[in-house]
């Protein structure tokens, strides 16, 4: 048993990190929160496509790298660290397991197809206006619909970069014989997709938390108050130490969940979804997934709170890029089930108590 990343896995993450450092600086993230043209809202996407990022999880016959989620999990962590804009998780992590079509998979692997999803209890599709294809769960079925054939209603929120949309079927132009165009039914289980999305987002949250911790440490070293760097005060030290602990112990849960999702495979049935009622018996895989999301969301939320407290009033403004990372933490902590939802699922799994929250 070797619970440590291989050299290949580390090299992939390192390449992604370098590409993002070069092509997705904070200024680009800031711009993505303002600009309308898609090109400016998707910094580093062409360069990531070049290194095969969007084909990581696509099988080799379709021009992908054929990796598992665990192989790519650190790469997703890096996209969180850089607060990379766009439907990253939905396109690079979720779509490969959903699309059976050869041509679509090839386009996906080459970075020529952007995908957004609305799965399970999720109400909104993130970055849907940047997507070519939407995969939507509807009455328990997954349907792939071209972006043009649905009505998207923007739901402005705390994160100016990761925008949310309501999705309604049947735009006037896409009515087919009087019935709304519902797209193509996908013959795969939504469970794998939802698990994958959740764990990849958890990895992004770990990356976000690491960035916030580093930024806060640097700020605490340089900012002086009462004649000393604020990082020399024990109260600041201990808050930052607690963030370091939270991140350090959340990350292994995320990595283990990625391994569990890979082991369960994309075709496995749900851990035990009881279609008769809202109570969900959660299997071992979903337990790992929920632990990962709960812990990562909590660590990142703590990192955000402490970052704000360490930066003081300046952190509270749009002057610093910090604001973009805070908003992404809040946005992703709430996506695909927040900490409360996942802890309640864990509670049901471990203690057998009825679970009030339906997820997936």
């Amino acid at each position, binding site marked *: 048993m070797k619970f440590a990343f291989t050299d290949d896995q580390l090299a992939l993450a390192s390449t992604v990190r370098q590409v993002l450092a070069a092509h997705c600086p904070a200024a680009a993230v800031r711009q993505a929160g303002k600009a309308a043209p898609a090109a400016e809202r998707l910094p580093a996407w062409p360069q990531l496509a070049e290194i095969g990022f969007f084909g990581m999880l696509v099988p080799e016959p379709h021009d992908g790298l054929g990796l598992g989620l665990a192989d790519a999990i650190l790469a997703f962590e890096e996209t969180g660290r850089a607060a990379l804009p766009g439907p990253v998780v939905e396109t690079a992590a979720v779509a490969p397991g959903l699309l059976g079509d050869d041509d679509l998979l090839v386009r996906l692997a080459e970075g020529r197809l952007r995908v957004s999803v609305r799965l399970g209890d999720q109400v909104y599709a993130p970055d849907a206006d940047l997507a070519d294809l939407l995969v939507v769960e509807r009455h328990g079925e997954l349907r792939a619909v071209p972006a043009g054939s649905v009505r998207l209603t923007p739901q*402005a*929120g705390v994160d100016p970069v990761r925008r949310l949309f309501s999705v309604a079927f049947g735009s006037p132009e896409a009515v087919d014989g009087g019935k709304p165009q519902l797209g193509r039914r996908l013959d795969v289980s939504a469970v794998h997709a939802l698990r994958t999305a959740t764990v990849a987002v958890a990895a992004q949250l770990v990356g976000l938390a690491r960035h916030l911790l580093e930024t806060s440490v640097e700020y605490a070293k340089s900012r002086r*108050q009462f004649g000393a760097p604020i990082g020399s005060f024990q109260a600041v030290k201990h808050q930052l130490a607690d963030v370091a602990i939270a991140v350090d112990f959340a990350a292994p849960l995320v990595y283990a969940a990625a391994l569990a999702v890979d082991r369960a495979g994309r075709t496995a049935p749900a851990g035990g979804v009881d279609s008769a009622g809202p109570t969900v018996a959660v299997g071992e895989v979903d337990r790992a997934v929920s632990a990962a999301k709960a812990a990562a969301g909590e660590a990142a939320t703590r990192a955000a709170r402490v970052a704000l407290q360490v930066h003081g009033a300046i952190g509270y403004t*749009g002057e610093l890029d910090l604001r973009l990372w805070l908003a992404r933490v809040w946005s992703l902590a709430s996506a695909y089930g927040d900490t409360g939802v996942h802890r309640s699922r864990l509670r049901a799994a471990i203690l057998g108590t009825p679970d009030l929250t339906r997820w997936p």
Partner: protein
Amino acid sequence: MDLDFTPQERAFRAEVRDWLAAHVPERLPSMDTRDGFEAHREWERLLADARLSVVSWPERHGGRCASLVEWLIFEEEYWAAGAPGRVSQNGIFLLAPTIFSYGTAEQNDRFLRRMARADDIWAQAWSEPEAGSDLASLRSRAERVAGGWRLYGQKTWSSRATYADWGFGLFRSDPESTRHRGLTYFLFPLRDVTVRPIAQLDGEPGFAELFFDGVFVPDCQVLGAPGDGWRIAMATTSSERGLTLRSPGRFMATADRLVRLARSTATDPALADEITRAWMDTEAYRLHTFGVARRIASGEEIGPASSMGKVFWSELDVRLHALAIQLLGERGLLAGDAPDAEDGGRWLDGFLFSLAGPIYAGTNEIQRTIIAERVLGLPR
């Protein structure tokens, strides 16, 4: 000891409640926009017409000499009625107590009545880019000239300053001085100052930077004696932390909205438990404040113990709002202009606003150190 309101207190509550029920407007636009600012000014004038803008002030300045308990009752009713935030807050709660204590008779007459009627809206100018919470390290300076002073330097985190009329703050009037000594308290019109708005987390310019390039301030706009600014300002920041800044009524109204939201939603019991705790803490804050009000009314100095209140309310406020956002799930993070936003995005606005609480008016780290050293007597 009792918790029974007197007939007079009950009558006052009834009057306030009735007036508010008849007059509270629909939600006003944000006071961090030009239109919203003026709409809030109009509302304050309406309040002033009913002598409800500064109930605890003397009648000659627009108040009705209400007791502290009556002021708390006013605040409970005000926030329970869903009335707008107070755009004149900085002047009324931070500056006015200082003018009452240290201002000349002429300053009292010149400034207070106009403040009560929102004819002048005041912005505080405490912080500087390098000073932050460490107020004693201020660098902005005042040069003595004939008949007054000229101000130079930069202030930051000045709330409301983008659209306000007047500002108040400390400047170093003795160039030889360091730390607490040689600071003077000035009142200045903002039209003479260069104001640069700072966008907040929610994108609106709630704060501003102020640039002073030799602004002239006549002697009659110095508050207290030159060089005595530190002592006077400490009295003001103590009221900033103390009773007057955050009355319980505000948190009670938030807790009530939170409980109503939770009752209308399928709430996970673990979340319900946190909501219950926040409700209980709100009740504790209310009762605690009644106790403090009684002590103040008996002539006691509250002093550094007010730091306990600051830590408590600021962290309670974050929790109340964060819980509502959790309850709302994905919808919790929607802004006011999203079609699906709950209650016009008030929970998100309130959450972002609440995050400043543990930071401003002395960070909670500083407050905890004050409690430890000055209340508990631990060594520096």
